[in-house]
């Protein structure tokens, strides 16, 4: 892999991730289209993904969950918007409860993936935008997203010893 870049736009809350792979577009596409392959890269090593449902068609649903080290699970879903194999894929990505109920108190992102053949490889660009900036800020002010609280709770033990 080369030419990797991750650009963050704080004004539009958009991330553009770009990488070039040494494989044909059809092969790279399969990493997304084959649920068994998707499971192998969607989640980090600490939280591997399982994809029980995978309907990659317009209007289709993909469901997944990530399993943490203590066995706790974090659930998510894709709502597929458009599929143009092997060039473009668009979906919304959100959070869910354990029973699969979609959570409207957490942000939804809009993901557009493009696959472009270059030389004998493929350039993949993933543009992820938080779907509704106002909604996201409202969720933040309600305390739905609190990264500091997580970090601080881990620091409590250290501070107590200091």
């Amino acid at each position, binding site marked *: 892999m080369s030419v990797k870049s991750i650009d963050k736009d704080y004004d539009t809350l958009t991330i553009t991730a770009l990488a070039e792979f040494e494989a044909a577009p059809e092969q790279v596409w399969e990493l997304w289209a084959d649920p068994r392959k998707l499971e192998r890269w969607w989640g*980090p*090593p600490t939280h591997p993904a399982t994809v029980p449902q995978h309907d990659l068609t317009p209007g289709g649903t993909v469901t997944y969950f990530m399993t943490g080290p203590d066995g706790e699970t974090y659930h998510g879903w894709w709502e597929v918007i458009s599929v143009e194999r092997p060039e473009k894929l668009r979906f919304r990505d959100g959070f869910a409860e354990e029973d699969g109920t979609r959570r409207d108190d957490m942000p939804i992102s809009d993901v557009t993936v493009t696959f472009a053949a270059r030389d004998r490889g493929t350039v993949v660009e993933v543009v992820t935008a938080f779907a509704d900036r106002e909604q996201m800020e409202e969720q933040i002010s309600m305390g739905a997203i609190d990264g500091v609280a997580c970090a601080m709770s881990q620091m409590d033990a250290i501070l107590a010893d200091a």
Partner: protein
Amino acid sequence: MPRRVLSYNQMVVDALSDEAVNRLFHALADSTRRDILRRAAAGELSVSRLAEAYPMSFAAVQKHVAVLEAAGLVFKVRRGREQLVSTAPDAVDQAHRALDALAEAWEGRLNRMSDLLRQETPGNGPR
């Protein structure tokens, strides 16, 4: 702490990067900084008010605050014309942190995609 408050960060963030861990431990390795953190957690204070509490120059206190800020433990919050040191990020900071976490997640995903493709086609070396 309710489960949902933890789940977002844990879900999208890869294991804390080495640099992030280093910054965190560096920040906490100093007793003055730990004290500043306790004061900031107890209530928002301006840097000048903070500096009154320590037998060192204002610049020295500013440097300690900068280290804590770089580790993500405190944030500068504006109240009118004052800049205060706070342990609670405002909505803008939180949105930035959420974006940062998501960007790290995608970087990890691209790396794993590359590894997977390389495993599938062992003949291809790195470009």
